[in-house]
């Protein structure tokens, strides 16, 4: 299939290129930008005046809910949500039921996802067997089955010796270890950031030290083992400072932030809105602002949707009993654009946080829009306003803190491997 995209504003975050030009696609790759290659004859032309063309988004965390949680969402619905959101590559965490701790499960997931012909799926294997934090998982065989890194997800890992050995083992083979920094004893029972709002609402508090104490331990172990460590979903200003200091002394750590945490804070849960019950909890406005700055200055490597579809019933309960998480894939791009605009960043810099920089964390060939790179693209109308409604979402998860609110920027076309996968 030879495809031509005319008159788009082409943005390549990797190079910073930002110009109106024509994209030529052949054999699943970008053949050229500007002049057509010799003998190129497009089988299909997309007129893209007024649209931005950028590399498809790379999402470091999207829960697809299979296997085990099909009542919340299915692979079909969530892969459709991914392409509707312009996401062409996504990493899925291992906290399925059963968890992704067996090569067979990973192969099955990859095969099922592949047959849907939507986004590329990069499973994150369980770091420990059953995510129980007791025995390390078969990383070698899981990597062979397609896992790109090993993640403990939100499951506690209280035994630091297990973590030490998991890091040593992973470092032996160069596997990346992903951890969401949270001390489970300090976090115990907490559902809201420890501060004025939790005090006012009487919600069990989850202190910021739950994150920073865990970070200290992880960073020490990373330094001692030489493991490649990725820190998922930072939520505190002090946490950001710890990672910045670790990077400054040369530790090979990377980190990410969930897109909702760039825009929301604990005040937003002020009327017990269960949609604001997220993991990690929404924290103080000063934490949110630190996360926004750190993503802009590169201390935080990438932003992710942290897509977590939850069924309606699991949110129609008191705040503390609600299943945490928010649907993210389809609000990802507009929320990234909103952050970039508010931070007054050039569009290429804004998009890098959700494309090239995320691809670098995963170590995959993605996030570029240049001759020779995979033809994974997203076309979007940067001015298009739309209201987040149940009907507007392809995801089965309608759990959005932004429900009923207007966002700006909507994907019109998504291309994976040179094929138009959205719409259609």
């Amino acid at each position, binding site marked *: 299939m030879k495809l031509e995209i005319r008159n788009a504003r082409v943005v390549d975050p990797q190079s910073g290129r930002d110009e109106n030009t024509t994209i030529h696609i052949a054999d699943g790759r970008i053949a050229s930008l500007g002049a057509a290659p010799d003998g190129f004859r497009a089988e299909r032309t997309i007129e893209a005046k007024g649209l931005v063309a950028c590399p498809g988004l790379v999402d470091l965390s999207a829960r697809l809910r299979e296997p085990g949680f099909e009542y919340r969402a299915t692979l079909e619905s969530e892969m459709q949500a991914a392409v509707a959101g312009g996401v062409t590559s996504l990493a899925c965490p291992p906290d399925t039921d059963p968890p992704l701790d067996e090569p067979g499960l990973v192969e099955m997931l990859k095969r099922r996802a592949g047959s849907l012909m939507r986004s590329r799926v990069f499973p994150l294997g369980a770091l420990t067997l059953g995510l129980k934090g007791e025995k390390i998982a078969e990383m070698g065989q899981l990597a062979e089955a397609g896992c790109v890194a090993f993640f403990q997800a939100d499951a506690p890992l209280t035994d630091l010796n297990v973590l030490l050995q998991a890091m040593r083992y992973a470092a032996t083979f160069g596997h990346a270890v992903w951890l969401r920094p949270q001390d489970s004893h300090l976090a115990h029972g907490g559902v809201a950031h420890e501060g*004025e709002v939790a005090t*006012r*609402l*009487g919600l069990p508090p989850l*202190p910021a030290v739950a994150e920073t104490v865990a970070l200290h331990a992880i960073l020490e172990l990373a330094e001692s083992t030489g493991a490649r460590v990725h820190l998922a979903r930072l939520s505190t200003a002090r946490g950001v400072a710890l990672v910045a200091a670790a990077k400054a002394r040369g530790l090979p750590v990377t980190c990410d932030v969930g897109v909702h945490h760039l825009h929301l804070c604990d005040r937003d849960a002020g009327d017990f809105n269960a949609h604001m019950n997220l993991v990690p909890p929404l924290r103080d406005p000063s934490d949110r602002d630190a996360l926004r700055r750190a993503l802009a200055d590169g201390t935080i490597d990438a932003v992710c949707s942290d897509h977590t579809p939850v069924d309606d019933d699991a949110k*129609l*309960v*008191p*705040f503390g009993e609600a299943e945490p998480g928010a649907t993210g894939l389809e609000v990802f791009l507009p929320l990234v654009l909103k952050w970039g605009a508010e931070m007054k960043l050039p569009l290429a810099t804004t998009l890098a946080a959700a494309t090239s920089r995320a691809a670098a964390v995963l170590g995959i060939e993605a996030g570029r829009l240049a001759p020779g790179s995979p033809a994974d693209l997203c076309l979007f109308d940067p001015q298009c306003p739309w209201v987040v409604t149940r009907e507007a979402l392809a995801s089965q998860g309608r759990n959005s803190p932004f429900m009923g609110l207007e966002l700006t920027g909507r994907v019109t076309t998504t291309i994976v491997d040179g094929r138009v996968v959205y719409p259609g």
Partner: protein
Amino acid sequence: MSANLQLDSQGRLVHLLTTEGLPRSLILHILDTAAQFVSVNEREVKKVPLLRGKSIFNVFFENSTRTRTTFEIAAKRLSADVINLNIGSSSTAKGETLLDTVWNLQAMDADMFVVRHAEAGAPHLIARHVKPGVHVVNAGDGRHAHPTQGLLDMYTIRHYKQDFSRLVVAIVGDVLHSRVARSQIHALTTLGVPEVRVVGPKTLLPKDVERLGVRVFHDVAAGLRDCDVVITLRLQNERMSGPLLPSAGEFNKTYGLTPEKLALAKPDAIVMHPGPINRGVEIDSGVADGTHSVIMPQVTFGIAVRMAVMAILAGNDR
């Protein structure tokens, strides 16, 4: 914060969920109405027909004989039909959600729900999902609020001290877990009490509590000095030892209200407690049964205040 949910567009009370955000005039209206019911309760026939034909459901997802009984008496003295449901925590075990339970009861033509729940915000959720004209009274949700208790405490303070604008009030003990303390703090600051103190160890005071408008004291002597009102909070059994406190005995020594400590307060200070009391833990018998104690009048006024809240809610239908 929840002002919009509990008030209608004319500022009338449609639910009582929290004392936070209740206008001063409305709190005073509740207290004034309660004063009328206090005299009803002193009559031989303690019954008025204000809520005749109304069905009030006491829905308790957390057991409490005492609070439920006071609501039941209040509703009966207003001639309402009262149905008590002690659901405990078993409803979710049976697979029925909180809202399913409420919707089922609503289908039985409930006019008012009195709700107690272990989770903060549960009554808000219910208030958001009941039909117009159905009222929700929060009888205690997690650590969040217990507004009728807060209001009966205001009634008691006004009864003994008249003027709120010159008082020093100390709330002593486990503020962290106390919905009563939160409801008292919001009511006291709204009524213009110039100094509200919270007194306790750092493990039992919630973070940033001073932002609710209180002064924080860890030293009990400093905290009690020259107080007009001393409110001691119940210390739950499960919190008497563990990570928050070494022992009930040590708590009694440091923060328990003894006659010696009470002597630091003003000579005419009153002592309050939301009950049930732990003698020898947060309060000594000598104080609880002493001349400064108004713990029993609190219980008596509690009936009148709950009658007032229900009557005002039902009256706003017309």
